[in-house]
Every structure is written in structure tokens, then in C-alpha cells.
């Protein structure tokens, strides 16, 4: 069971000219076992939504609420949110020089579970996850995200999704910059996660391409810091054919 409820979320960032409002009241409910796709043009505030839910210090919440199974997410620290079951696959994963992938994964798993994983099964789990994401077994010895190709970074994010097994995953443009083979590998990973009981997915994307592999239950069009329209998978088909123009014009008025 997992339900992520976002109500009237308003977020601003500090700029040289003072605070700038980016999210202007976002309301969304990701029910247990549901996959929601958020589609929107560049600069519409998709990453801001993802980062704000995860607790990035750059963003200031000026209004609204976010709850996970009734718990106040916004009152939690960044790591508490992760331990409560939130996971963000980042659009631009961060390099951590000198920290190996295997050390990182083990540290994260220990933090999430509150105890160190059993060595035998853990090694098997890690190797399995890396293999399913088409990552070389020596991947574990490399420094986190350092010198990774774009595709390796995204596949590493999904490997973490498999291993850390959150309640709700927010995937911020995980499809961007992937060739078709990598896109399939990543989509398979996300689908394996979705098959598990009660998992929620918020799939943020700029393109409709990934929706051929990951079938959303709901699609939202995101423009200028707001949900401009919501519907079923047919909405994605409409966007594929007509683009965001209609919504952008409406937002500009």
C-alpha cells in the first residue's frame, strides 16, 4: 500500500532578483500501484516538482502539502524521506569521486533498511541488478557516476531503484539521452518494479517514446508550473500528434 498525495504545492527558488515562483499549485494523487506520467516542455517545472518532493535545499516550499501514506513528507529531512519510501531517479545524477558504486549501494541499503544487508544474498542481489541493467560486473568498483556515459548513469539509477525497493519512485526524464536499446533495458527495470505489490511511479518525461514501453494509468500535461490537463493514455497519443502548443498558448493568456 502506498499513496502519495500532493496538494496545491507551491515552490519558489531564490534568484538574484529575489524569489521566483516556479510551481504554482500542483495537485496530484499517485494511488497504490498506479503509474502516472507527467509530460511537459522544457522549463515547465517538472524537475522542480521532483526535487521539491525529494527535499532538495535549493527549493523553498511556499504552500501546499505532500503526504506519503498520510505522513507529512515536507516535514522530513532528505534522508528521512528516502527511508520513508521515496525514491528519485535524477535527471542529472551527481558524481561522487572516490566512492565506489558497491560501497555506495551497500551504505544506502543499510541506511534504508536500518541494518546491514546479509553479505551473501546482497552480493547476489547487486550482481543480479547490474546484470539485468546490462552493466558490467566491474561497475561496482567504479566511482559513483564519475566518467559514466549518459546511459550508464540512468541504468545505475534504475539499478538503485531495484535494490532499494522504495514505495514510490519519481523518475525524472530517465529516458532522456538513451538509445533505443538502453531505453528498453531501463523500461524493463521500471516494469519489474511496477509488477511488485502496491508500488507507485511518477514518470516525468519530455517525450512520448518511453510510454510505448511503460504504460501509464494516468497522463498529466504539465505547463508553466501547473497540471494543465489530465487524462488516460490517450492524452499521450494526442501530445504525440499535436505537441504542447495548445497548452502553451492557453498558459500564456
Amino acid at each position, binding site marked *: 500500500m502506498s499513496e502519495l498525495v500532493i496538494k496545491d504545492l507551491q515552490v519558489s527558488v531564490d534568484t538574484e532578483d529575489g524569489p521566483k515562483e516556479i510551481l504554482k499549485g500542483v495537485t496530484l494523487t499517485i494511488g497504490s500501484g498506479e503509474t502516472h506520467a507527467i509530460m511537459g516542455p522544457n522549463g515547465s517545472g517538472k524537475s522542480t516538482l521532483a526535487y521539491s518532493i*525529494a*527535499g*532538495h*535545499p*535549493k527549493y523553498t516550499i511556499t504552500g501546499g502539502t505532500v503526504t506519503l501514506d498520510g505522513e507529512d513528507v515536507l516535514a522530513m*529531512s*532528505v*534522508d528521512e*524521506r*528516502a*527511508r520513508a519510501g521515496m*525514491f*528519485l531517479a*535524477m535527471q542529472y*545524477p*551527481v*558524481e*561522487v*569521486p*572516490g*566512492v565506489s558504486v558497491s*560501497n*555506495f549501494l551497500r*551504505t*544506502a541499503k543499510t*541506511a*534504508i533498511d536500518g541494518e546491514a544487508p546479509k553479505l551473501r544474498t546482497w552480493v547476489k542481489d547487486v550482481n543480479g541488478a547490474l546484470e539485468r541493467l546490462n552493466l558490467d560486473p566491474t561497475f561496482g568498483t567504479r*566511482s559513483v557516476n564519475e566518467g559514466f556515459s549518459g546511459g550508464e548513469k540512468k541504468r545505475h539509477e534504475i539499478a*538503485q531503484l531495484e535494490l*532499494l525497493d522504495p514505495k514510490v519512485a519519481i523518475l525524472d526524464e530517465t529516458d532522456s539521452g538513451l538509445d533505443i536499446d538502453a531505453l528498453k533495458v531501463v523500461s524493463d527495470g521500471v516494469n519489474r518494479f511496477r509488477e511488485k505489490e502496491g508500488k507507485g511511479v511518477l514518470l516525468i518525461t519530455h517525450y512520448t517514446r518511453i510510454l510505448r514501453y511503460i504504460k501509464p494509468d494516468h497522463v498529466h500535461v504539465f505547463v508553466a508550473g501547473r497540471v494543465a490537463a489530465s487524462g488516460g493514455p490517450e492524452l499521450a497519443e494526442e501530445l504525440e500528434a499535436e505537441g504542447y502548443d495548445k497548452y502553451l498558448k492557453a498558459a500564456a493568456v
Partner: protein
Amino acid sequence: MTVTDTDLGTDPSIARDSVASALEQDRVESHLNPPPSYDLADHPVPTGREEVWRFTPLKRLRGILDGEASDKQLRREASLPEGVTLTEITAEQARELGELAPNDRPSALAVANAGGAVLLDVPAELEATEPVVVTLTGKSADDLVWGHVVVRLGRFSKATVVLRHAGSARYAATTTVVVGDGAELNMVSLQDWDDDAVHLGRDAIRVGRDASVKHTSVSFGGDVVRMHANVEYDGPGGEAELLGLYFADAGQHLEHRLFADHNQPRTKSNVVYKGALQGQGARTVWIGNVLIRKVAEGIETYEENRNLVLTDGCQADSVPNLEIETGEIEGAGHASATARFDDEQLFYLRSRGVSDAEARRLVLHGFFNDLIRKVGIPSLEEQLTDTVEAELAKNVLDGLAPVGGAQ
């Protein structure tokens, strides 16, 4: 980020040096480093305004530079692989072995006052399988101790030498390392002093033809630690890797000064020093001087210093200097950066459930990790990693307000 280039155009002392070098190749001196000399008159008591002393808190040297005689010693324990010897020699013998003359007051005083030297001798062609470990332990910071050491590696020999300083003292020492042709040395000087020790040290290295030297200076303890690592070459083809790792706590002054003197063609120097600072008044200084002489064609040099500032109230100075007298070089570069914890890195780790303190520990571990592996002494690796983490545990994990995105 601070990067300082020596301005070749306007510094009159460089112009003078260049003229001198055209006349008399061997005598040219770097304007960054005083001329070597055994004569104490050439090394007057510093006022603190001198370029080479301006970063050092002279008062806290507690009278070492006055140069009083003292017969106090550090207790010496040595573990020597077969064939390697440790003996006492006279100061004259040390000179005859080809030691490098003192280049500052503490090293000149050390030679004058130590009453002889200790020779660590690795015979020609011996390949020592175990590391040489020498531990020098002081009794009290009230004891003034003068040290004079020569390390000699015979032709084509191979050795690892760990020199560990512990306990407390006011200690000034000069160590010459003469590395024979084709020999290979891996040497670590570990400053693991108690809180009140003062250590002024100079490791002067002569790299033989086609020889290679790795020298690592590790400074954790002490009130004031000021270490020189000097390298020059006895022939072409020599390589020197100069590494350093330091961790300054509240009130500590840790200073590392490098001088790579490319006085021979086709020689290499590669310098990487990394440091962390935490607590009120923690101070580190890194001065990286590289001189590429006219004869030194086809050389390669790179130097890098990185500092990670963990809390408010710390100061890290970092000054790379490059003097170039020939244009015929393979490569020369430097980098220097002083940074705080990166908010994006901490956020990434914390978004995976890792606590703030644990995220900082990981980042710091990563910061030093590559360097610790480069040291290349497995028995020391774990010890260095543990010490770094213990240092971090002292303050940051104890809830001393860290800088940056804690929330």
C-alpha cells in the same frame, strides 16, 4: 579556486637568474628557494616577513629557531628487512654520501646541532620485500630534538620506507634521500604527533638516473608541522611522485612546502597533495614550487593541491608556483582548489537514505581514497583510512556545526 602563476615578466629576480643561468648553469638558484648552505650565517633568524616564512606562526615554534644545543633524542624503533642497515655516521660522512645542503634555518641548525647522522642503507641491487619501518617517538614537547638522517638506496635497489613520528617534541630534522641510478623508492613520512608537538622537517631527495621515487608526507598530529619535500635529479630519466595528505583540526597549523628542481633533462615530477580542515583556527599551507631549468628539456611536471574545508573558522592557503627557463618541455601544469562540501553530492547521497553525517563521511572518504591507494603500501592503507575517519568523527559527527547544506 585559487590559481597563482608566477609572473615571469615582471619579477626582477627571475630576470637576474636567467642571466646568471646563461653564464653559469649549475649555480642558478630559484628565487623561490634560498640558496643551500651549511653556514648558519646564510640562514638568519626569520622575522616572519620572508617569503618562505610568511605563512608560519613563528611564536608557536617555541624557540626552535634560536638553535640552542640539545642532546635530547627521539626513541628509535626500527624494523629492517634483511640486508638493510641502520647505523650512526658523522656529519662529515653524511656530506660525503652526497646529502643536499640545508636550504633553511631549521635544516641548517639540525645538521649543526644533531652531532652526527643516522644512515639507513639499502645496498645496491637489494630488493627489500618487507617495508622498512622506523618509528621515532618523543617524550615531551619541552624536549628540543635535532635530527639528521640520510637514506641511501644503492643502484637498482628497491625499498619501501615508512618513517613514523609519534609522541611529542620540538623537533627539527633534515633527511636526505639519495636514490641511486635505476633504484626505486617508496617513502612515507607520517606525522602522527600528539597535539602539542612542533615539527620542522625537510626531506631532500636526489633522484638518480632512471630512478623513481614516490614520497608521501602524511600529517595528522602536532601543533605546528612544517614539512619540506625537495627533489632534484642526478641524471636524466628520473621520476618523482610527491604525495601528501593532511587533516588539520582546531588550532593546528600544518604546512607543506614542495620544491621540484628540474635540473636534468627528461625528468618527471608529479605532485598531489590533499587536505581537510575542521574546527576553529585550523590552518593549512601548501606551497608548490617547480623550477624548470634551461638544461631541463623534455621534462614533464604536474602539481595539484586540493583542500576540503569541513567547518567554518578554517583557512587553507594554496600557492602553486612554476618557474620556467626553457620552452622545450613536454608538459607543465598545476591546479589548486579549496572547496566546501558539495551540496549536490550530499543531496544525492541523502536522497538514498544516507544520513547527513554519513554522507559527509562518504564524501571525505572518497576525497582521500584515490590518494591513499596511490601511496601503494597496503599495510598502511587501512590505517590511513581509519585515521581519516577518526579525525572526522572528532568534530563533524559530534555535531559541531558543519558548513553548507546541513538541515
